[in-house]
């Protein structure tokens, strides 16, 4: 059976598991209808021109995995930022694992989407926020239809979460192939502050397809600092759909570290619904083999006096493929917008590919928008310069790649993440450097 049909028939079974009287169910019904009409995206669609899902849609995915598996902390420790104190919300094969998690309701909510969707006390919040900024697109609609579990994080007015919050999704390989669709909702109310780390990780080589949707609401003068660590096995694929709505005077930065996985697609949309917003989108992508990462970004400037900064760097070796499709949309009202976009790529091998496509639509006349993309090789002159200082060729190459990626790392605010990602990059480049960048 084709995956689409399988999903359609699974939806009927899914309905039996959830409360059909709940208003949310109307949202789900509408979403599955949309997915039924559109199906999975194909390369014929402009937004998917460089990324084909065919190779991952042919697997016979299990849609409803069996109950939580006995996973020990030691099995997952290395995937956690464990050297600092954090709240952690852990899902195993899409199911919440209470013994691996450290949630809270003290001062802030770092808990479960399933409770937020079902408990009456969250109803008003759900009415206000659930699925309000998710565009009707095939993958996000599919997620909405099956929306059931994920992280629910709410930081009340003027509260600063003193610990970062980690959202971790593990797959065990108990199923020969697994599809999971986490649904996260993050609300930072006025003046709130939070740091979030998200990761999807398979523990075996069985194929996994994750189609996740995250809605992030950044209130007035609030600050959200979000890190996505994508370093999964080459048998796992991820469609990440993240939608961010910012109110006035807010800041949201989102770093995406794409170092692993088979096919990764990041649909990242920022909507600025107030003046003086600042949106920061950064990415480091380092791929090898036949890995494929597609960054599809949008910053929608709706109000005046806002800023956005997009900076994505990619290093591609062997037959890997990188795609960057970065859009900036400036509405007529959004005067004095300052939008910056940069995408730089290094191709290390002849077989590696990179498609970089900036897309600027500007309807205001008093704005500053700049964009630049480069695709090139390592600078030979720089390589020679380093070698005259006694740094051997291999290390010099690695140092240059490090330096290249480091421009993005410099804005990482959690030192443990910086350290870890730097180490992973070094590992990936097969070098040991005598310092941390």
């Amino acid at each position: 059976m084709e995956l689409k049909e399988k999903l359609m028939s699974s939806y009927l079974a899914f309905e039996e598991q959830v409360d059909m009287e709940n208003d949310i169910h109307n949202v789900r019904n509408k979403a599955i209808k949309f997915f039924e009409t559109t199906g999975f995206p194909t390369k014929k669609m402009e937004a998917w021109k460089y990324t084909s899902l065919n190779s991952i849609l042919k697997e016979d995915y299990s849609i409803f995995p069996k109950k939580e598996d006995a996973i020990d902390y030691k099995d997952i420790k290395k995937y956690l930022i464990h050297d600092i104190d954090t709240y952690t919300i852990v899902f195993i094969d899409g199911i919440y694992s209470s013994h691996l998690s450290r949630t809270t309701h003290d001062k802030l909510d770092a808990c479960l989407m399933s409770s937020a969707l079902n408990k009456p006390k969250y109803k008003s919040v759900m009415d206000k926020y659930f699925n309000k900024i998710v565009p009707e697109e095939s993958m996000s609609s599919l997620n909405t239809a099956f929306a059931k579990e994920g992280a629910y994080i709410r930081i009340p007015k003027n509260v600063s979460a003193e610990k970062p919050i980690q959202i971790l999704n593990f797959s065990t390989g108990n199923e020969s192939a697994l599809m999971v669709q986490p649904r996260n909702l993050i609300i930072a109310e006025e003046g709130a502050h939070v740091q979030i780390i998200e990761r999807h990780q398979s523990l075996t080589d069985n194929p996994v397809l994750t189609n996740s949707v995250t809605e992030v609401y950044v209130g007035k003068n609030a600050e959200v600092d979000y890190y996505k660590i994508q370093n999964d096995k080459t048998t796992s694929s991820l469609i990440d759909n993240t939608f961010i709505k910012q109110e006035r005077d807010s800041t949201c930065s989102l770093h995406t570290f794409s170092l692993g996985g088979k096919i990764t697609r990041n649909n990242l949309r920022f909507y600025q619904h107030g003046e003086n917003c600042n949106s920061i989108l950064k990415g480091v992508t380092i791929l090898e083999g036949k890995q494929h990462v597609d960054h599809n970004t949008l910053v929608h400037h709706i109000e005046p006096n806002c800023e956005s900064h997009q900076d994505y760097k990619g290093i591609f070796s062997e037959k890997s493929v990188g795609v960057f499709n970065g859009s900036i949309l400036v509405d007529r009202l959004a005067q004095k917008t300052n939008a910056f976009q940069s995408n730089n790529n290094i191709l290390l091998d002849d077989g590696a590919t990179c498609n970089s496509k900036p897309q600027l639509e500007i309807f205001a006349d008093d704005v500053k928008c700049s964009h630049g993309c480069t695709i090139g090789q390592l600078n030979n002159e720089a390589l020679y310069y380093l070698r005259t200082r006694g740094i051997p060729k291999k290390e010099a190459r690695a140092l240059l790649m490090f330096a290249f990626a480091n421009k993005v790392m410099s804005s990482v605010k959690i030192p443990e993440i910086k350290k870890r990602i730097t180490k992973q990059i070094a590992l990936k480049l097969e070098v040991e450097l005598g310092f941390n960048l």
Partner: protein
Amino acid sequence: MLKIKNLHASVDGEKILKGINLEINAGEVHAIMGPNGSGKSTLASVIAGNEDFEVTEGDILFEKANISELSPEERAHKGIFLSFQYPIEIPGVSVTNFIKTSINQVRKARGQKDMPANEMLKKIREKSALLDMDRKFLSRSLNEGFSGGEKKRNEIFQMAMLEPKLAILDETDSGLDIDALRIVSDGVNRLRNKGNATLVITHYQRLLDYVIPDVVHVLMDGKIVKTGGKELAKELEERGYDWLKEERAEMTS
């Protein structure tokens, strides 16, 4: 220390060096002067091991060993240093991290352990003071947005850190104002000792007012056409290079 015998080199098939002979002993400062396009920078690059240049004939001996086939890093490990005319900007790596990597890679190649962190710090502090460098400068990205003078000062800082046996200064005076020139020259002079040697490549005489050479060579059309003492530099400053061209033309005719 350095002995160059009948060196011919070309780039993209174009012959640039056409039979250079040069011998520099420990403790000496040699200057190479010459008009633009005479091959001065090429000579520096070839000694440093730039792979864009092809040595078609002749040998380069460093401490009696033939280094013509060695990579740039191997030459650096042996103690050869080139101060670039146009130092390369490397965004994303700080001056400090760069010099740490450089020193420890050289030590590694020589079979030594990494320099202890406190020793490294002390040395960085000492050498940056020698060149009157701002501490903030050390945490900036290598050469990125540096002024011409800052770049050159940074080159000499690296030289001070690496303590090479042979330092080649390629047009180190270009882009320097008079104060920077004095600081850089002072730095070079203080690094001089009986065990090391310096090869100064320059178009003008003014650097040689500060870094006094023992021997001055004039390079023209890929060959050393005249060798003399420090007074030769002054003569060139006054008379230019044309008289040498004429002298040569007469000789060849």
